[in-house]
């Protein structure tokens, strides 16, 4: 698996974040795309739903939560319906199990080639490296994922995986890897990829995809794409495998509408994705298309553990990517700074939690100590979330776990403890504030402003050093507020 999304652990986010902030191309590509999508998201919801938008989100939240609360029952129903339609259903407790199931199916069909549409869970379980190791040539058919694949790059956004790249890079890659002529025209680039892929679709032994929703009543999976590549990957090869996290289950088509209304609007500001495809069992007698075998691999890989934890709300996530687009930090550091296939706000809470739930309980946060801290807690993610996951709450929760386990900087903890101790002692606290102001008066650079005199600190001790690394600290040097207030009180003044 690419070290960009599976780095050595424990993962240190800071060097990647620092580098990303200095990367002007990344700033431009990611900044522009996220701002645009976020603005368009607000626009389309306003236009199509107005003040009902919040109610729609509430319905989606409750519907998904209901499904999670009844997961066992829905699983049984899904398995029964899927098997009735002739599909085979497999349960994978771990990533390795999921890969092993796929390899077994591939071996049974002596598969040598595979066409794959976009799927986060296959990134998560490392399916591609497993297939490559087994000699199964696998083609990513989502255009963005394809470009990343030929570049040996990794996705940096849940929905727009190559958000950190542009046409110029794509043009060069197509020249280098496909022998194409150089063009930056998006239509021509798409045609080059299309020509390259069409034959491979027809020749492939195996099709692989993820799923956006699993319908328990119908025993089918719903896949939302914009390129139609899923339909080709399921239409050509004789065998199709759907990999899907168990949290994707909902009751059935009767519950699907709010999610379809929300998913594409939240992710890409489209009313619907261009294709909304349903997969049920294999080709039936008299049908002309479709695979002869359909497998559903239901992946746990920590999800059941998350369900049993206080972070169960995270399983409501429909992977729309809206929180990434809305997040000021994601916009600046890009996806690879999160060291996971799940970047941005949702990734910051989901990555350590999935790891904790799959491995030993002491891992998780210990392997990703920066992720909960890499947020200004601005709340834009919560506001953007179509299923109302309170991500800032979980970030704060994780910060507390980090502190409890001694995984946060000690000096910072000591400062905060002193601050709290002083805050219980008003007289001392006032003296401390006075000392800060005195410190500034003595050591700061004085400046007369329209609003009175101010002292500027260019360097501060202790935790303040992080502040003055890039900023000055301005402190008003005049009379303290309390002195002013007390004086007015005694004089009567204008009061």
């Amino acid at each position, binding site marked *: 698996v690419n070290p960009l999304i599976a780095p050595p652990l424990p993962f240190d986010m800071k060097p990647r974040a620092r580098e990303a902030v200095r990367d002007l191309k990344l700033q431009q590509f990611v900044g522009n795309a996220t701002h645009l999508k976020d603005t368009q998201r607000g626009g389309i919801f306003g236009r199509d739903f107005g003040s009902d938008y919040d109610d729609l989100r509430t319905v989606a939240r409750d519907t998904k939560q209901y499904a999670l609360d009844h997961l066992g029952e829905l699983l049984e129903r899904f398995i029964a319906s899927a098997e009735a339609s002739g599909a085979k259903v497999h349960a994978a407790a771990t990533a390795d199990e999921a890969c092993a199931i796929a390899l077994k199916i591939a071996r049974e069909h002596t598969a040598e080639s595979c066409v794959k549409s976009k799927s986060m869970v296959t990134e998560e379980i490392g399916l591609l490296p497993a297939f490559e190791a087994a000699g199964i040539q696998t083609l990513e058919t989502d255009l963005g994922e394809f470009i990343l694949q030929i570049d040996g790059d990794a996705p940096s956004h849940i929905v727009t995986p190559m958000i950190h790249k542009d046409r110029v890079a794509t043009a060069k890659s197509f020249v280098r890897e496909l022998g194409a002529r150089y063009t930056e025209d998006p239509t021509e680039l798409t045609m080059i990829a299309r020509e390259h892929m069409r034959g491979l679709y027809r020749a492939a032994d195996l099709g692989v995809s993820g799923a956006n929703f699993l319908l328990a009543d119908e025993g089918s999976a719903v896949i939302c794409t914009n390129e139609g590549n899923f339909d080709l990957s399921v239409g050509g090869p004789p065998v199709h495998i759907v990999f899907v996290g168990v949290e994707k289950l909902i009751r059935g088509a009767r519950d699907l509408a709010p999610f379809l209304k929300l998913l594409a609007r939240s992710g890409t500001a489209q009313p619907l994705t261009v294709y909304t495809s349903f997969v049920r069992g294999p080709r039936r007698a008299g049908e002309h298309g479709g695979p002869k075998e359909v497998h559903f691999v239901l992946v746990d890989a920590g999800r059941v553990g998350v369900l049993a934890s206080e972070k169960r709300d995270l399983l409501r996530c429909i992977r729309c990517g809206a929180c990434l687009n809305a997040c000021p930090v994601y916009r600046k550091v890009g996806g690879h700074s999160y060291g996971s296939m799940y970047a941005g706000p949702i990734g910051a809470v989901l990555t350590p939690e999935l790891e904790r739930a799959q491995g030993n309980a002491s891992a998780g946060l210990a392997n990703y100590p920066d992720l909960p801290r890499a947020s200004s807690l601005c*709340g834009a993610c919560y506001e953007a979330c179509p299923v109302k996951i309170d991500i800032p709450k979980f970030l*704060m929760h994780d910060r507390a776990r980090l502190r409890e386990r001694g995984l946060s900087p000690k000096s910072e903890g000591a400062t905060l403890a002193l601050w709290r101790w*002083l805050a219980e002692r008003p007289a001392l606290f006032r003296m401390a504030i006075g000392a800060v102001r005195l410190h500034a008066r003595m050591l700061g650079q004085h400046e007369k402003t329209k609003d009175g005199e101010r002292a500027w600190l260019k360097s501060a001790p202790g935790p303040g050093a992080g*502040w003055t690394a890039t*900023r000055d600290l301005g402190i008003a040097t005049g009379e303290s507020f309390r002195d002013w*207030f007390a004086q007015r009180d005694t004089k009567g003044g204008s009061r």
Partner: protein
Amino acid sequence: MRVALFTTCLAEALAPRALKATVLVLEHVGVRPELPTAQTCCGQPMLSNGLPADAAVLARRMAEIFAPYDAVVTPSGSCCSVVREKYAGLFDEGSADRAAVDALAAKTYELVEFLETKLKVDPTTLRGKSTPSAAPLTCHDACHLRGIHRHGSTAPFLAKSCCGDVRELPDMAQCCGFGGMFSTQFPEVSTALGEEKLAHVASTGASTLVASDTGCAAHLAGLAHRKGVPLRVISPAEALAESLGLLESKA
């Protein structure tokens, strides 16, 4: 109505003028705020940095100190949102502490919110002795105002009152990059966001920025100062007090 001023420790340390302005504006609309002297810190730094038990100690103090008052008003957006949104989560439902912090949350207001929603002050009536300053200003709301559904409401209020030329800040919704200790933990990211905000401010042509949180104001003012960008950063209270002729600005 007994109104208490919730000063916040950051404003006492960094921005006494914002607090003076808050008192002057409240007096202008006929409210005489009191200053409970035992108040210190609301616990936001502990709460945001993984020390909820320490934050709970301070939350309990806050509820006690402000218990005698009918309303609690603060010029600092983020401290306000902590009391309003976050205190409840520190205590079990049904406990006495929970009831106390819920009562505090129900009567705590950010200054502009207090004027607009509690006192129902018509902003167009906020006219002082002097004519409104012609100097254009622009307004950045603290992200924390999202949680109390006030994000983006400062600028319209100031524009309707006597603040003259209030210019729309492009991409106001994006965080300025302060984020409490985030600003020292990820200084490069924090600064990059701050620089983007300053660029947007510059694009408006305004030389005064109104920021509705003391921390955001200190971050942006400190960044502008380090970069040698002439920018005045004030609170909404100061903008109102100046326009009403209650507070001097030696322009």
